[in-house]
């Protein structure tokens, strides 16, 4: 855990989120099945996992809009069951599905929301202007929400979550469904927030997003935490330095599984390709050619969190 984090300015030991044995049940189904989490002030913390892993349920409990079924949960040192309203006053929430107010303009979405926090009209107007500038929507301030693009709506939702100058912002899949350009713009804004010392808690099923933004993360699957650490730690622990992606010109890639035995430390057969986990990619490709297996393509890349997830659960993240 001595990993240096050059980008993080102030990470204290104070736990903003403290969960022990946290459970969320819907009837017989346990969406979150006993997780332990600590999020420290100033860090960017991620929940990585596929759809249905329990990320959103966790986020709703942390946002104090969903009472836990069992376990201990403290947010900002307080009990959500008793102090929900006071905790929410200090949080920013960006839900998975934009729930902007379709009857209001872009600016009004921020000012009206600010009023829910008891922020004065004058301050609300001022903050709305700053935030619109921050998310680059100033020129759409008087527009209704409906005609905005997906990326714009997302940015507006993020701006709205910042209207109370929160200590901690919860972002549930902040870039799902956005085009690459829009995603990069959102990442860049979130990175700036992080630099300003705002604690970020986010969920994602994109490993590139987790690697870009998170100082520390947990990998969730089926309501449980299956691994945790920094992105680099996780890759080191559960994967190799490099990965070779091989595609063979036959419908069944599996037939090549045995022929590749011993090439790397480990291999995964997927429906459309085979992944070889190796220390030296180029060396492995040379070995494949020596065995004259003739793949239609061979790609060497660095190991990512996707590989960590595949290793831990035997499944890919994005289905």
């Amino acid at each position: 855990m001595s990993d240096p984090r050059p980008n993080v300015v102030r990470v204290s030991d104070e736990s903003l989120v403290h969960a022990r044995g946290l459970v969320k049940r819907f009837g017989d189904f346990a969406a979150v099945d006993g997780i332990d989490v600590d999020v420290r002030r100033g860090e960017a913390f991620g929940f990585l996992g596929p759809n249905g892993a329990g990320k959103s349920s966790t986020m709703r409990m942390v946002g104090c809009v969903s009472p836990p079924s069992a376990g201990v949960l403290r947010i900002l040192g307080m009990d959500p069951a008793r102090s929900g309203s006071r905790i929410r006053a200090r949080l920013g929430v960006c839900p998975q599905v934009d729930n902007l107010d379709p009857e209001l303009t872009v600016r009004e979405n921020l000012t009206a929301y600010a009023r829910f926090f008891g922020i004065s009209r004058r301050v609300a107007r001022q903050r709305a202007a700053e935030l619109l500038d921050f998310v680059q929507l100033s020129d759409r301030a008087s527009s209704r929400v409906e005609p905005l693009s997906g990326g714009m709506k997302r940015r507006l939702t993020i701006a709205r979550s910042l209207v109370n100058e929160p200590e901690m912002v919860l972002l549930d899949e902040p870039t799902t469904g956005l085009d690459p350009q829009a995603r990069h713009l959102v990442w860049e804004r979130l990175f700036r927030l992080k630099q300003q010392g705002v604690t970020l808690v986010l969920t994602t099923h994109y490993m590139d997003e987790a690697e870009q933004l998170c100082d520390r993360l947990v990998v969730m699957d089926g309501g449980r935490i299956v691994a945790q650490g920094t992105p680099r730690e996780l890759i080191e622990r559960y994967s190799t330095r490099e990965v070779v992606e091989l595609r063979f010109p036959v419908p069944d890639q599996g037939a090549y599984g045995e022929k590749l035995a011993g090439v790397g430390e480990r291999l995964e057969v997927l429906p459309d390709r085979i992944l070889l986990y190796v220390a030296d990619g180029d060396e492995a490709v040379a070995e494949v050619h020596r065995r004259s297996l003739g793949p239609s393509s061979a790609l060497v890349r660095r190991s990512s969190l996707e590989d960590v997830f595949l290793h831990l659960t035997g499944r890919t993240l994005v289905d």
Partner: protein
Amino acid sequence: MVTLALPRLLLARDSARRAGSMVERNVAALRSAYWIVMVGGFLEPLLYLFSIGVGVGALIGDIRIPDGRVVGYAEFVAPAMLAASAMSGALSETTFNFFGKMKFMRLYDAVLATPVRPMEVAAGELIWAMARGTVYAAAFLVVMTLMDLTSWPRALAAFPATVFVGFAFGALGMALSTFMRGWQEFDLIAAVQFALFLFSGTFVPAQDYWPPLRMLVEITPLYRAVDLIRGICLTSFGAVQVVDLIYLCALFAGGLALAGRRMARLLLK
């Protein structure tokens, strides 16, 4: 911990402030088309008054009311139109509109992520729903008085009573819409509402009804509201009207409490 020690009054003030911010959101959402709808809402009871009270009234002439007096039909019908319009105004705002905001706009999901609590959302929405009804009630009472269907002092007393009727039905409507699953069920609410409108001693004295029907009618909320408003506008305020008031109070308190609880159940899963 400090806040817990503060006087309850201060907490109540915070709550009121947060309910008020819900009202502010609705004010911000006002658009031009809304004002025309608003004028329409005022027009509705007036149209009924002229059609039934005046038009059909000319065919009926005078009518004998329970206290033995004989009055013009319009005088008899007008207070009932006022009560019924308070009901329908409150219900349309708190069923149809409230449901749309909750289920389709997902407005309250966003609001409940802030310090605002479900009960405060319910209270804020109810106050807003009644703001319109209050204007309608005042305008209709002015028209009634100008047409000599009631007197100024009676109209003044009927004003808060009408607003209160609106609050009671508004709370009921909100509670009902938390049980709705889709738009189809609103047809049912509209049908029940129309049945109440027809059978609440609105067009003829309840004494006219077949006795078992009359007993059923007397426990329905609109009958109590009509009885209250007619008592104030036309006849007298007696023990029965006190019963009306208690009934409507219970409807208001029960409805609001149920709405707040149900919203918490639905939205804070």
